[in-house]
Structures are given as structure tokens and as C-alpha cells.
């Protein structure tokens, strides 16, 4: 007389493979839901492209002329293009958490939490959909860079590398944003904190200037900032002659480990958002 889905949870309890497959499936359902919403209204993706375009066109063009920043063998525009991609991924992701507050106020989060979806799948599904949004930014910035004459790599392996880095970085920062949302719980406080952390994250990194020109204390901050490793990997993949400072393996490892830690924290905090 019990309904059919009880069997699945019993199976999952016995068989860890089924549990993992179920987890992955649910993560993709949550991501699918977000992508469907995006398909109904994609305008957001285009309006978001304005900001990186301005950075490249105005800031990039001017600083290329000034030659104030030592960028080694790369032109300044080549140096900053991956930084601007990283920045737009950061901006897409860092305000993502506000959707949780919004959905909490609408009662949507309640319904997901009452469903038998693993908490971590709710978090990762959201993170993955932030990745999808970020991919659209990557495409726009790639096209823009091409128009501005940046020495872009079109090697398929590099492109796959970029897609991976963009998705994991978006996932990482959106999960970070989710954690903040779960802690502060109101839109007003979230917006305040979002503003306060975005700029330091961006400027305490190697996005638009090399870390070597920073004062010591800022160097320390830049080295614990995941954005630095994201930019380092993007620069290596995107730009012809771009060299990794920390090694791609280290970049990947840093991003993945940060993502795992943040996901675990977020999955733990997520249910508290409705209490």
C-alpha cells in the first residue's frame, strides 16, 4: 500500500552505486529546471555581457596604450582577457545565492526540501546551472576578444579546458554565495555583503595585473583566493603563449578541493534557510 518510490530509497540504502547514480540524476534534474527557466527568458544572458565588454573596450584599450603593467611577453589585452572572463564568471555566480532567499520567501525551497532530493544535489544542481550561465559569458568574451585581436587559442583541448574551468569556478563561487545567503537570510543583508566581497575577490587576484607587483599582504590574500587559480588556468588555456604560474594540475586541484569543501558546508546549511 505504500507508494512506489519507497522501493528506490530502500535500494539506495543497500546499494551505494544506486545511491550515487540517484545523487547524480537529482543534481541534473535541479540543473535542468534552472536551464529551462533560462530558456524561457534568456535576456539576462545578454544584459550581463555589457559589463565585461566595457572592461575590455575601455579599461583594456587604455591600459594597453599606457603599458603601466608588466605582463611579460603578452600584450596587456591578451593578459587581461582571461581575467575579464574570470570576472564575469565571478559576477554571474556571486549573487546567485539571492535566488535562494527569493525562493525561500516564495516557499519554493520548502517544497524542494520536503522532496526526497539529497541536500547536496540541491546545492550542486544550482551550482551546475550557474556554470551553464557562465558558459554563455565565456562565448561572448571569446568572440569579443577575437574582435579585439587577442591571441586566442582555438585548440579543442584548450576549449574543453576552458569550459571545465568556467563551470567549476561558477559552481564554486555560486556555492560560496549560497552559503552567505543561508547565513544572512535576508535580501538586504545579502546585497550588502555581496557588494563588499566582490571587489576584494576581483582585485586581490591576478585578473588584471600580475601578483608580483602587489605588496606582501595582498600577495598572501591573492594566493588563498580561488579566482587566482581560475585566472591562471584560463590564461594558460586561452592565450597563445600564456604560461601557467602554478601549474595546471595545481590550479585544477585548488578549484576542485575548494568546491568540495564549499558544497559540503552549503549542503549542511541549506535546510536552515527555512527555519
Amino acid at each position: 500500500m505504500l507508494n512506489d518510490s519507497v522501493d528506490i530509497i530502500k535500494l539506495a540504502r543497500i546499494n551505494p552505486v544506486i545511491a550515487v547514480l540517484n545523487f547524480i540524476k537529482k543534481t541534473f534534474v535541479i540543473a535542468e529546471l534552472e536551464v529551462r527557466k533560462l530558456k524561457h527568458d534568456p535576456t539576462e544572458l545578454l544584459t550581463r555581457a555589457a559589463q565585461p565588454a566595457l572592461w575590455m573596450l575601455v579599461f583594456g584599450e587604455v591600459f594597453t596604450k599606457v603599458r603601466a603593467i608588466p605582463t611579460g611577453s603578452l600584450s596587456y589585452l591578451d593578459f587581461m582577457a582571461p581575467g575579464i572572463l574570470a570576472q564575469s564568471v565571478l559576477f554571474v555566480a556571486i549573487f546567485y545565492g539571492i535566488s535562494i532567499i527569493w525562493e525561500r520567501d516564495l516557499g519554493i525551497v520548502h517544497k524542494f526540501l520536503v522532496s526526497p532530493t539529497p541536500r547536496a544535489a540541491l546545492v550542486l544542481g544550482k551550482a551546475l546551472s550557474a556554470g551553464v550561465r557562465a558558459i554563455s559569458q565565456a562565448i561572448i568574451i571569446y568572440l569579443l576578444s577575437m574582435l579585439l585581436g587577442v591571441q586566442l587559442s582555438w585548440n579543442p583541448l584548450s576549449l574543453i579546458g576552458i569550459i571545465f574551468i568556467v563551470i567549476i569556478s561558477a559552481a564554486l563561487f555560486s556555492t560560496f554565495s549560497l552559503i552567505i545567503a543561508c547565513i544572512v537570510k535576508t535580501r538586504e543583508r545579502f546585497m550588502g555583503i555581496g557588494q563588499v566581497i566582490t571587489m576584494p575577490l576581483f582585485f586581490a587576484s591576478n585578473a588584471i595585473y600580475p601578483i608580483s607587483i602587489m605588496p606582501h599582504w595582498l600577495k598572501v590574500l591573492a594566493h588563498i583566493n580561488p579566482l587566482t587559480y581560475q585566472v591562471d588556468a584560463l590564461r594558460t588555456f586561452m592565450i597563445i603563449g600564456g604560461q601557467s604560474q602554478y601549474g595546471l594540475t595545481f590550479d585544477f586541484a585548488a578549484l576542485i578541493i575548494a568546491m568540495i569543501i564549499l558544497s559540503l558546508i552549503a549542503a549542511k546549511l541549506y535546510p536552515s534557510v527555512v527555519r
Partner: protein
Amino acid sequence: MTKKILEVKNLTKKFGNFTAVNSISFNVDKSEIFGVVGPNGAGKTTTIKMLTTLLPPTSGEASIGNYDIVRDASTVRRIIGYVPQLLSADGNLTGYENLLMFAKLYDIPSKEREKRIWDSLHLMGLSDSAGNMVKSYSGGMIRRLEIAQSVLHRPLVLFLDEPTVGLDPIARDAVWKHVETLAANGTTVLMTTHYMEEADTMCSRIAIMHKGNIAAIGSPKELKLSIGNQDASLDKVFEHYAGDKLEENESGRNFAEVSRTRRNAKRLG
């Protein structure tokens, strides 16, 4: 023969020094429409949140279909349906998509999915608007869509938190008609409301909650007889047990709830 499907024993929730739900106990039988009535702040929503695994109880226990709401929370989630107080269907998806996503989350086998979704839409009278974006729906339609969504996996117990708040009388009647159909088909319904006349006509049994306690419990008729007046309104019964009128009971603690209700009303236009 009746069968207990929901058992609540000494369930308590404290927020700091404030006791939102104070050691309540009751049982619900299969196919009942069980009402929990009381003013805002009586502990109705807190009770529902505990029973739906959203909020861990401070003490006491409850089980649904013999599964404990704390120890077997993940199983409980599979056998209950829940419609929150707010109109929570996703406005940026179509009605069909709202159901599709939840069908997937509840592991309804893909070959059965379409049939269940359309059966559910049909049952709630939404087949014709399934392809429209939910933001174009009226409040009553959204509520019916949410009920459709919450019964896709054929839950043993359906929890409805103030299902008709903010709806006009016609939409309210439609929602009730559909809830009665569900109950007639064997779904057990536990609902909260602060509309006494609604509880009177709809529910087979009612628990009157007041300041975190269950002040009285029984069928509407029993409750009326218990105050010695079988023609009394439930409002009178409530006054008798709570020693208080409904309207005068909105304390400061309910600000969030009140503002949410208002926001909801605004959203409905």
C-alpha cells in the same frame, strides 16, 4: 475499519525560550481530512514543518505510515506531499514543466511520467493551461497546480498549509472540491486553516490549536456538543476553548507571517 496513518506524541518545538508547539499528541486515520485550526502564531505552521521534516522537533515524536519523522526522514519525504502556505509554483516555468520536474525528483518511472502528469493536471482542471507560463495563472490555478504537483507520487498523507489563504471565494470552492476528490480517492489530508467555517464543512476531525497547545480535538459535531450547543459556530467553540477571540490574537511575533501573506496577496493582484 480505520487505520492510523499519522501518529503524533508529545511533539514539542521551542525557539529559545519561546515554546511554539507544546507537547501535542493526536492521530490521523487513513482517508481523513484532518484540520488544524487556530489563529496566526498558534503553532500550526510549526507543527506542519516538523511533520514534513523541515524542522527538527525539540522533543516528542511523530510517525507517518510507521516511519519516524526524524530517524526515517528520507523515507517520510517519499510518502508525503506538501503544499506550503505561499503560492510556490515556479512562475518562470509552464504548469506542465512544474509537474515534470517534480515527477523526476520523486523518481516516477519515465514510462509512467506523462500519464501521471496529465492525470494530475486533469484531476485539478488544468489540462488546458498546462502549456502556459505559471506567472500568467490566477491564484486559484496556482494553488491547484501545486496540489497536482504534490500528489504526483501518490503520497500517503498530503499536508496543506492554509491552502485557501488569499483566494477569492470561487477559487476557494474549486480548491476544496479538488481536495475532497483526493480524499475520496484515499489520500489522507492534514490541513491548517484559520477559516473556521471552512474547517467546519470540510474536515472530518479538527484540532483547535491555541498558543502551542491543542485546546480541543474531535469532529465538528463533537466539538459543538462539547460546549453544549450543537448549533454553535466553530468560532464560538474556539472562543470557548481558547478563552479568546481569533482576531485579537495577532501578536508581534507574527510580523513575518503577516507580511508574507500580504506579499502573497500582492503577487496575486
